[in-house]
């Protein structure tokens, strides 16, 4: 008999949740022998999965989920030393998570998903909003001999002050807030697989996904490390498309779709996109 498991995909708009799901469905449907999780049976309704996987296979931009197109996906999977699972993965829109930040409330439906979650995949696109401080910028200017005059912008014009709004909050702060909401509502210790999507954009930096988060989002790194009694986490770099769309489309279409996928955990690289989910389901 299969165990029920519920994996929640969390992330801001454009963070790669649906593309991940599309690539996951293609991989599972191929029944490749190299993945940690394997499909044991087809889902009853596969319309949505087939639609997004079709876009993914064609190296097209996978249609983003919005509040009106949220879907609940059920996958029947099995893994070595994991057992069989009926895996429920709701494809929630990034807009819904942005609304949590701005409106400070969550739908009862989303709350129920949090209550049931076996684990969470937190997605972040590497193009993060860093919230650069003026003191740092000015110090850098002083170091390299910049000559911007006080009270003037780089173009020499006096600048207008823009009012504060939540949209200007750095990415790491938004993600911490989403995790705080999660921890507040989750009834037990939570497993969080953090996925840095579009990993192909940053892999040339020569750092591991863990090091990348430490470098680009140091406060999030501290939050994850110092709350180990409340959440267990691992960081993955995942390129579900394998490159930039449309720039790399022709090259990507020339290689086997399974080979396009890049998954990095620590120093290990593979094409196994089921790894983050397998990590969440591991018995410990």
């Amino acid at each position, binding site marked *: 008999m299969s165990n029920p498991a519920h994996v929640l995909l969390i992330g801001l708009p454009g963070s790669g949740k649906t593309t991940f799901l599309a690539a996951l469905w293609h991989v599972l449907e191929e029944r490749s022998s190299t993945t940690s999780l394997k499909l044991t049976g087809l889902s009853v309704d596969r319309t949505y999965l087939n639609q997004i996987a079709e876009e993914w296979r064609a190296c097209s931009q996978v249609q983003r989920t919005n509040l009106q197109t949220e879907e609940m996906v059920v996958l029947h999977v099995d893994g070595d030393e994991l057992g069989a699972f009926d895996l429920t993965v709701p494809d929630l829109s990034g807009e819904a998570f942005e609304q*949590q930040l701005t409106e*400070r*409330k*969550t*739908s*009862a439906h989303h*709350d129920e998903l949090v209550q049931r979650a076996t684990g969470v995949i937190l997605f972040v696109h590497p193009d993060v909003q860093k*919230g*650069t*401080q*003026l*003191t740092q*910028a*000015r*110090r850098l*200017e*002083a170091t390299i001999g910049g000559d*911007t005059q*006080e*009270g*003037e*912008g780089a173009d020499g014009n006096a*600048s*207008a*002050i*823009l009012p*504060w709004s*939540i949209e*200007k*909050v*750095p990415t*790491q*702060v938004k993600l*911490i*807030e989403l995790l*705080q*909401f999660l*921890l*507040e*509502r*989750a*009834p037990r210790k939570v497993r969080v697989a953090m996925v840095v999507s579009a990993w192909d954009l940053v892999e040339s930096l020569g750092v591991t996904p863990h090091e990348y988060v430490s470098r680009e989002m*140091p*406060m999030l790194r*501290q*939050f994850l*490390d*110092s*709350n180990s*009694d*409340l959440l267990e986490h691992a960081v993955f770099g995942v390129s579900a498309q394998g490159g930039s769309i449309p720039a790399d489309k022709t090259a990507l279409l020339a290689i086997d779709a399974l080979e396009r996928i890049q998954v990095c955990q620590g120093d290990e690289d593979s094409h196994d996109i089921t790894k983050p989910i397998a990590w969440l389901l591991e018995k410990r």
Partner: protein
Amino acid sequence: MADELDTDAKETTTTTGAIGEPAFVDLFAGTALNAADADAVTLRSPVQLVVLSGAEGSGKTTALASIYERLSQGPFAGFQFSGSRSLLGFEEVCHLNRLASGSTEPDTARTVRTQDAAYYHLALTGVAAGERRRHVLMSAVSGELFRLARNSREDCERLTFLHRADAIVVLVDGARLAMPEQRTNAHADASGILESFLDAKMVGASCRVEFIFSKLDRVLAAGQSALAFLNTTEKKLEAKFRPRLPNLTFRKIAARPAPSSSSGELNDGLADAFVSWTALEPRGAMKPWMQSAPPSDAREFSKFGWRHFEQIEGAKP
């Protein structure tokens, strides 16, 4: 924060949908905390309260913002960031020091004058292995209220949160110390604020009190006479308050030094200050204010220390 999940869950409310089912679950606001919010935090966990006081423009909010800014870049003062119930509040006070603000010079928005204090929460964990999570609240009160408190005992007595403070920081405005026509008043403002607190009996015997000479970079840039005045001011404040405040300390910081200043020593000033403000009492030490009932006129938040203490006492077998 997250280690109080059960209590937090009880606090959340649901909004009923049209068909009778709860449609939404309210989440915490994330802004600076009011007294009731601060009270809720303190009922769940022991909290250290740091009150930043000083005249208008003395650097209270900048100090607060700088602590958060440093944490956003990595561990600070031996602490890792573990969470905050007021992340948006911190972000807002940091806004004028962000490129996204459109500003070209670092600045801090003045604290809006209200009757009540706002509180900024940090959950912190020491970087050393085995350290437990701690909670710190830092108060933000407009300098105008401290000016009123300096002028009137009645106004001073309204600042009831002072009773509960683990540390009271009195900022002496370094920018004014740098200006000959302003420096004596800068000294007098800071001294007068603390004198008012003591006169109104708002400072507990075990409360740490620290005079902070802020904007040290401005003092140093103004030359030897400004620095000499600062040193003289420190001696005078020491002579005036030490007999009444055995835990009195002095410190010089530049929370947000100018790019041209030598920053190493100045940066350490804020880290050392924060360590000092948040130093823990020896285990089992009972504060004098815990040994008696809270004053009947105390506002809700100022009573929280007693409440938490009562809970601990009540939980003993």
